[in-house]
């Protein structure tokens, strides 16, 4: 109960501060609209369905790209950790591409795929894949060898060892890699949506972009709030259970 009060107090305080700054009249209301205006925009956008539609389109793109990135990244990361050749080739490639900010993929995706969903998907996959790959590789590589030895003495080998020992043993790395992959995917998709106008559906990034074009600051701030909210929600829904499991079993983070 006390925690809830603290949280409500903090965010309520932020809104009050915002309103106070608006009332002080330091900036034009075009640049800094009062909270009520933003709330009004959000309410309208919720009622006319445009916010839900944009969120749905964005989430669809994000989930599809993210799942593809993870499905490719997980086995590749395990493979590069186990094979010297793969690590010298695919591993180095991944390391290099991971340092590339994912927004840099946007021009290339545009030229290759045009203003299409494929371009969006490509950017999200590129944002996810490399960081997941590297995190899993790192996890599998830093595994205490005693786990595999112990498993061997109990009759585990080959695929069984990979799935029942190496993969779960790298779980702390896998989860942090997937979390990082999520953050990168989210960033790259927003960049892609802001830069690329496509006709197959407007996402949250597009709403943000149109807000800027129309000088509609209430829309810009409103959409930004929604983007932050989705990020928070994804963290709680997708990763919190895993982190709780890690905390319980490994006893970390206490």
């Amino acid at each position, binding site marked *: 109960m006390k925690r809830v009060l603290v949280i409500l107090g903090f965010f309520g305080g932020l809104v009050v501060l915002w309103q106070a700054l608006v009332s002080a009249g330091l900036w034009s209301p075009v640049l800094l609209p009062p909270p009520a205006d933003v709330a009004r925009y959000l309410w309208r956008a919720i009622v006319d369905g445009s916010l839900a539609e944009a969120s749905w389109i964005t989430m669809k793109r994000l989930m599809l790209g993210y799942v593809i990135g993870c499905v490719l990244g997980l086995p590749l990361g395990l493979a590069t950790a186990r094979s010297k050749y793969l690590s010298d080739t695919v591993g180095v490639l991944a390391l290099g591409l991971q340092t590339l900010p994912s927004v840099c993929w946007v021009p290339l995706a545009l030229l290759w795929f045009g203003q299409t969903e494929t371009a969006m998907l490509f950017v999200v996959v590129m944002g996810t894949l490399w960081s997941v790959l590297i995190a899993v590789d790192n996890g599998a590589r830093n595994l205490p060898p005693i786990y595999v030895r112990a498993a061997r*003495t*109990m009759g585990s080998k080959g695929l069984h060892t990979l799935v029942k020992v190496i993969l779960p043993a790298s779980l702390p790395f896998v989860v942090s890699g997937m979390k990082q992959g999520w953050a990168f995917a989210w960033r790259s998709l927003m960049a892609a949506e802001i830069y690329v106008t496509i006709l197959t559906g407007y996402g949250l990034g597009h709403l943000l972009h149109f807000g800027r074009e129309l000088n509609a600051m209430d829309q810009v701030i409103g959409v930004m709030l929604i983007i932050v909210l989705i990020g928070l929600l994804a963290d709680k829904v997708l990763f919190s259970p895993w982190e709780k499991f890690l905390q319980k*079993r490994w006893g970390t983070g206490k």
Partner: protein
Amino acid sequence: MSTSDELQILPPSKLVVDHVTKSFHTQRGWLKALDDVSLTVDEGEFVCLVGPSGCGKSTLLNLIAGLDTPESGTLSCDGMPITTTGRDRGVMFQEHALFPWLDVLGNVLFGLNLKPSLNKAERVEIARYYLQLVGLGRFIHANVHELSGGMKQRVALARALAPNPRILCMDEPFAALDAMTREQLYADLQRIWDQRKKTIIFVTHNVREAVCLGDRVVLFSPNPGRIREQFRIDLQRPRDINSVELAEHATEITRALKQHNAKREVAE
């Protein structure tokens, strides 16, 4: 197969190590960890391998466990050559090596899950039996990080026993524990050995521990790793590590150990 079949006491194995040699490449060149070592361990015998570090006792244990292969010579278990790991040989390491992603029960089930003849309920029943045997019946759902060092080694013992091996290989399993915990585990291990009838190969650098547990103490010396001397310990069981007779045996063996070391240093 039923639970009682799986839990039946299997006859322990006879182990034969025949002229085994094994070298390792180190920064200072090739190290002969084992030089023409031969050893026979009888069915149900408790043999302790003792010696200073680098004498090859752990290397020999790894070969018996099948985690490594010899350069020359052969090892066999009940006449069958040892080429790789097998469920007839359970292993316990100095580190507990428990899997942190599983709870206590999950760890003990790991080896049992690889036995296709059992169903889930039977596996759980067997795992519970072994956890009770090592005194952890009340901790089956605990997480590994919540256990003390001694409890972790107890789980590791239950995990090694669960697939019902005929040989138990133990590589300094109690070395990292405090003295009180160790003494309790000596008593428990002797009881379990008596109950489950295993052949046990126990590596340690603690002579008293070896005398307390072993039917026979095999003394190793390093560079190259060889068996120097063997001592039969005929003390009555269960043995108390603090008893006077035990201390006398330990003193005798320690003296021999020092003599071999001194001879080696003179020779060098």
